[in-house]
């Protein structure tokens, strides 16, 4: 009986010791978990705040439209400009001027982004009822490169490009007479 009581007593002591160690381990584990949880909460908060703050500015459409308007409306663009009276005729394309061999240089000169233009490229195609009269490439070096990337629209960030195509009904001026035509402008701008 005495032996039994002693065994029970020793067992209680052992259990008590075990409980103290268990508590320590348990508390330590809880603190690791709590710190881990706090870190997750902190990151979640930062992530949530950041998700509501957008510093991205998408000006692709505005930039492409202004470029197209510049081709049309600028005195040194592709529309017919009467130098005698200083009047521009937007939407009237002088065929002879459009067929000039130096038109690409002229456009590059009047819409000049620097020696190397990594900002914008375009393909300007003039068509009449007979078919394509001429395609003029603005910034041909980069147009050819970016044209390959146009199909890779899944590249959303830097490295990708976005195209914008517009068609306009225009008048083609040829030796004093006018005939209807279509001007197709495809602008490619890299993502920034």
């Amino acid at each position, binding site marked *: 009986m005495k032996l039994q009581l002693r065994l029970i007593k020793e067992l209680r002591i052992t259990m008590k010791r075990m409980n103290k160690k268990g508590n320590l381990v348990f508390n330590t584990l809880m603190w690791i978990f709590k710190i881990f949880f706090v870190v997750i909460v902190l990151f979640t908060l930062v992530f949530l705040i950041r998700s509501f703050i957008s510093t991205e*500015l998408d000006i692709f459409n505005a930039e492409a439209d202004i470029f197209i308007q*510049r081709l049309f*409306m600028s005195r040194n663009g592709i529309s017919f400009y009467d130098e005698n009276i*200083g009047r521009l005729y937007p939407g009237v394309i002088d065929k002879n001027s459009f067929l000039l061999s130096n038109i690409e240089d002229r456009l590059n000169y009047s819409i*000049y982004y620097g020696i190397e233009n990594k900002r914008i490229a375009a393909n300007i195609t003039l068509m009449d009822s007979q078919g394509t009269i001429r395609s003029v490439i603005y910034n041909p070096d980069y147009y050819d490169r970016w044209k390959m990337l146009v199909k890779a629209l899944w590249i959303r960030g830097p490295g990708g490009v976005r195209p914008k195509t517009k068609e306009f009904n225009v008048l083609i001026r040829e030796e004093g007479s006018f005939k209807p035509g279509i001007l197709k402008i495809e602008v490619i701008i890299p993502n920034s």
Partner: protein
Amino acid sequence: MKKRGRLVLNRKAEITNEIYNVLIQIIIIIMILVACMSYLNSVKKNTLFEKMYLSRDVALMMNTIYAAPENVKVEYFAANANLSDYTFESKDYYVIVNEKGKDIAHAKYYKYATDLTFEEDFPLITNADLIMFLKNNNKVQVDEETPDTISDFFCSPVIPGNNDPYVIIDPGHGDNPLFDLGDPGYVTDDIQESTFTTQISEVLNAGFDYDVTRPSDYYITMFERLSVLSRADVIISIHLGNYSEQENAVKAFISAESEKKQESITLACHILNNFAKNSQFDVAIIPVVVSELSNEDPKLVLLADKVAVLLEIGNINNKESIELLDVYEIAAAINKGIKDYYEKDE
């Protein structure tokens, strides 16, 4: 008793332990809150977005200024940003926007396209509540304020030839009894075209030898007018415009087939520039092929061997604008235009 005492001691330790736990947790929560608030504050103070926005916007504005077919003046301000907190400059066709006093490493850049046929002046702007963009003839200026005023046309210099010209003012066909008083385009409630143009020719304070095709408001045929005009060196024909309600312009028609086309353009240019200074009109020079006009077309007065301009002023169908027309102001613009053409002093 002993057991109970041990139990109390245990509870005290647990309570103390629990209090420390709670305190540490409260400290951690406070630390998180402080970190969050500090982060939010840094976001609030961060001007990255404003700099990106302003650099892009100013670059697009430069592109737009160059895209405009005519001279243009723009007063630029940003509704949600104080421009005077930033510096603006242009380098290698980049608009560079930075916070005042900050290192260039903090600046934001955006590229724009210049036009090499234009002279460009974009100095460092450091303290601007608004930025002025001015495109005037072949120069683009960007600054806090632009000293130059806009002129609508660059008037090509010509040698007028006769320095003592004989100018004939043609105030149109005069009151035609065939037109009803309610005939739209010729008469409004208060203004009759023929009376109005007669008044202009009457108040013209010319510093040159001049005459009119009709001194008062009576009907005169095109043949009679042409015979008077054939004696002129310079012809100025005055009409009111007759267009859809919204339009309000001063149009100067010149003959595309004239021997003195360039002289006529320059004269029209000087007259329109004086109109643009005094009024809020749109102005335009329009060439016409006179040989293709009908027999009664008023533009037949644009004789091929004369310096001739036909002015269409305002729009008789735009009642609000027509009531604002001032015959003295119009006469002064025509008078000054002719003098500018001949470079005569006031």
